[in-house]
């Protein structure tokens, strides 16, 4: 049991899901270079029209982070439709230096034969799928966000040796992708003339129900949960399940504070119950953890 007790997951920072101005992205990662995260995922995963940063810009950031001792992974689009998107995907997959996170089976196809990561938008729902991806070169997978702790436990028991598991522990939940841009729709703009308006919403645009409950977040072609998933109180369980890394998703404000909370709890400087009030105050629309427990994703079962 000593091994289990001492098992220490690494901290990972997911890609920025929103459209931030170039300078803001660069400043953000300058700060991240000294933050206590071990793995950093970089790149545009939502919309290929977003062009504040080009691949070269991302590679420059990757270089800085690598020099700062971070493991850098280049993330890719979740929804690939146009040839122009495939062309850019091939450039990323053939970068020759950094590991790549596939967020669509099309990317997996291009990465077969080299060591790659699959993100949470690739449907790895069972050990058979995990094993066959491992045979293609998969080295790490991220638990799909609607799966439960019980399924994770089964997957961990059955996973091929050498495969790392990552779990998203903090962030708004990606729920859907579409050909349609809901942010442009909200602004009454057609998608082909969207004015890149999602740059106005660094945390996405909240959609509420007619009785004023914050429900979803519109982030271009992606729909997210309004509530933030929070598995801080599950750290002991994540250790017990031998999860290699835990992922925090960037948000417009407080990302460094959030990283710090998880870091402090991981190294035992703070207990999760001590840290939980602070963490709660960083969430734009409150927290949830229903998926982890087998309920509706939006349910909140943890104590705060």
């Amino acid at each position, binding site marked *: 049991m000593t091994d289990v007790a001492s098992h220490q997951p690494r901290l990972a920072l997911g890609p920025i899901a929103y459209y931030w101005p170039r300078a803001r992205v660069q400043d953000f990662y300058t700060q991240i270079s000294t933050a206590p995260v071990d793995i950093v995922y970089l790149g545009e995963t939502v919309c290929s029209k977003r062009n504040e940063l080009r691949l070269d810009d991302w590679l420059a950031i990757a270089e800085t982070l690598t020099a700062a001792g971070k493991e850098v992974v280049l993330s890719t689009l979740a929804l690939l439709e146009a040839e122009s998107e495939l062309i850019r995907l091939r450039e990323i997959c053939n970068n020759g230096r950094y590991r790549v996170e596939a967020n669509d*089976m099309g990317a997996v196809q291009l990465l077969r034969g080299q060591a790659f990561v699959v993100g949470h938008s690739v*449907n790895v729902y*069972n050990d058979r*799928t995990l094993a066959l991806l491992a045979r293609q070169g998969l080295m790490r997978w991220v638990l799909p966000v609607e799966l439960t702790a019980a399924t994770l436990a089964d997957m961990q028991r059955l996973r091929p040796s050498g495969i790392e598991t990552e779990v998203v522990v903090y962030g708004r939940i990606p729920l859907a*992708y579409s*050909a349609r841009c809901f942010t442009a729709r909200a602004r009454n703009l057609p998608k082909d003339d969207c004015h890149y308006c999602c740059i106005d919403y660094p945390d996405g645009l909240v959609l509420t129900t007619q009785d004023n409950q914050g429900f979803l977040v519109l982030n271009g072609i992606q729909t997210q949960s309004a509530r933030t998933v929070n598995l801080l109180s599950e750290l002991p369980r994540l250790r017990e399940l031998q999860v290699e890394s835990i992922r925090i998703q960037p948000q417009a404000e407080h990302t460094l504070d959030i990283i710090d909370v998880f870091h402090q709890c991981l190294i035992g400087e703070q207990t999760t119950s001590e840290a939980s009030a602070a963490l709660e105050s960083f969430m734009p629309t409150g927290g949830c953890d229903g998926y982890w427990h087998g309920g509706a994703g939006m349910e909140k079962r943890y104590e705060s």
Partner: protein
Amino acid sequence: MELVCPAGNLPSLKTAVDHGANAVYFGFRDDTNARHFAGLNFTPAKMAEGIEYARRHRVRVFLALNTYPQPDGFKRWQTAVDQAAELGVDALIAADPGVLEYASTHHPKLNLHLSVQGSATNYEALRFYHDLFGIKRAVLPRVLSMSQVRHTIENSPVEIEVFAFGSLCVMVEGRCILSSYATGRSPNTFGACSPASHVEWIETPNGLDTRLGGVLIQRHPKGENVGYPTLCKGTFRVGNNTYHAIEEPTSLNVMELLPELAAAGVKAIKIEGRQRSPVYVGQVTRIWRAALDAFERDPAHFTPRPEWTAELGKVSEGAQTTLGAYHRPWQ
């Protein structure tokens, strides 16, 4: 082009066959397929009866096994694949890579189609499923524009089926979990979107509220037509506006694009609606059969007849239809 029609039960299957389907698709009576609704679908015995009926009329039969098993349930999907092979269906429509692998290794003669739930929106993804499992056909998600469909087919290693008519998913299929966010059940895990078990209809002084998993999806003033509270078709508030923030309650109808779809090389067109009545299946199959026949007789002069459009409009969700993503001018 092959006309592929839905069969939620034996009467629907028979009426689809009688009205001119080239193929019918159905599923087992559980969460192994994406229309897991109470009272719907087939027992193995009914399937055998359906297959016999279809065969007699030279209609092909596809079995949908298109949800994503988790480790503790995999055995049931495995058994379902074995049963499909034993029944001798013409193709298995699957989404999960684990299921596809099991089928391709244990039943190499079984034709495999990649379900729309497989979420393959580009030809690199299609190559993955073709290289690894030898799929013969894929159903494209309803998010591609006409030019993207054309380009995908030009580069695809497998034949392509597209949705032609019925309820419209505006999200890419297989990767939408809006439903489980509100209810705990999604198409991937449970085989149903916005499940009826989680719907509440609540009378208010002003009309009728519909809730899904407790979330207010729609508020109907008195006298307004009440639709099913599918999550993405609800009315929500963004900023100061209250509107269908994601999608209007419309149906897909691509009949006017038939010549373009044929020219692009589409091999089969699919009618959605295993959850609809046999009457619906009969009507829709008959009209699409007539349209396809008219197109094949005189491709150059094909246009949908007004009476077809009117009749299809009547059975459509929200009584309006759209070309969906196919008509997008942008990429």
